């Protein structure tokens, strides 16, 4: 891979990961009230966890230093917590006692996560912008 724009592939991995996270969050929000998901039972929220991947390709000096890391998003289904149970006997999916099992989506939490993910996305865009600026600067040496 050509090292033209410094940090480019790392930032690309970050933008991809944040996008995946935002998609999971939107899916959660959209399905916050789905009580009859395919496979039975209420919708179960998607959770995204990031993990870092050492980028061996970027050599660090004489090889003594550490390498920078890219990031990868892992989507899992959060089947641990159950959502709240709402008393609504009229609801088509109510059980015998009249309770409806709602999805384990907490709207407030999802909104906060969405804001954090957007903020990270913007920060990584800035990193790409500055990296590109540095490359342009480099090419103008001697002009």
């Amino acid at each position, binding site marked *: *891979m*050509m*090292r033209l724009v*410094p940090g480019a592939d790392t930032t690309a991995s970050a933008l991809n990961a944040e996008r995946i996270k935002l998609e999971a969050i939107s899916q959660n929000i959209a399905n916050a009230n789905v009580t009859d998901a395919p496979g039975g039972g209420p919708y179960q929220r998607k959770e995204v966890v990031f993990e870092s991947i050492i980028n061996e*390709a970027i*050599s660090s000096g004489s090889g003594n230093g550490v390498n920078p890391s890219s990031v990868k998003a892992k989507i899992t289904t959060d089947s641990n917590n159950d959502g709240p149970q709402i008393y609504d006997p009229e609801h088509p999916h109510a059980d015998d006692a009249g309770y409806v099992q709602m999805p384990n989506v907490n709207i407030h939490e999802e909104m906060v996560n969405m804001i954090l993910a957007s903020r990270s996305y913007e920060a990584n865009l800035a990193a790409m912008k500055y990296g590109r600026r540095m490359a342009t600067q*480099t*090419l103008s*040496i*001697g002009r």
Partner: protein
Amino acid sequence: MDAIGQATQFAQTAMDMANRVARQQAEDPSTLIPQDLQDQAAQIQERFTADTTPIPITETGNAGSAFSQMVGKLVADVSVKQTEAGQAWQGVLSGQGVPLHQAVIASEEAAVSFQLMVEVRNKLMESFQELMRMQA
């Protein structure tokens, strides 16, 4: 290779001329080298090296080889710079992970070195031409 080849050829010609002048001095001591020509040679040396001792052209035999050695080394060094720049670019383009700035800087250094060699060649040609004019 053509640009380097051409410049090498010119430098070679200049070296031959310098040798011929020195040999002529050895054979016919009565041919005086005018003072300003010697000054010019000393100036060139001074401008381009840290060492400021001028090459004595009036001495028989030695001058030609010292001078041609200097020009020969110059051509060799410029060639090395060009090779380094080429290797750096290859490192970048083939994805071997050479960072862009190293290739750009190597190219610039090679270009400046090449320009130096061309100027030296020009000065040598001028000096030789002036010498031939005097002898005519």
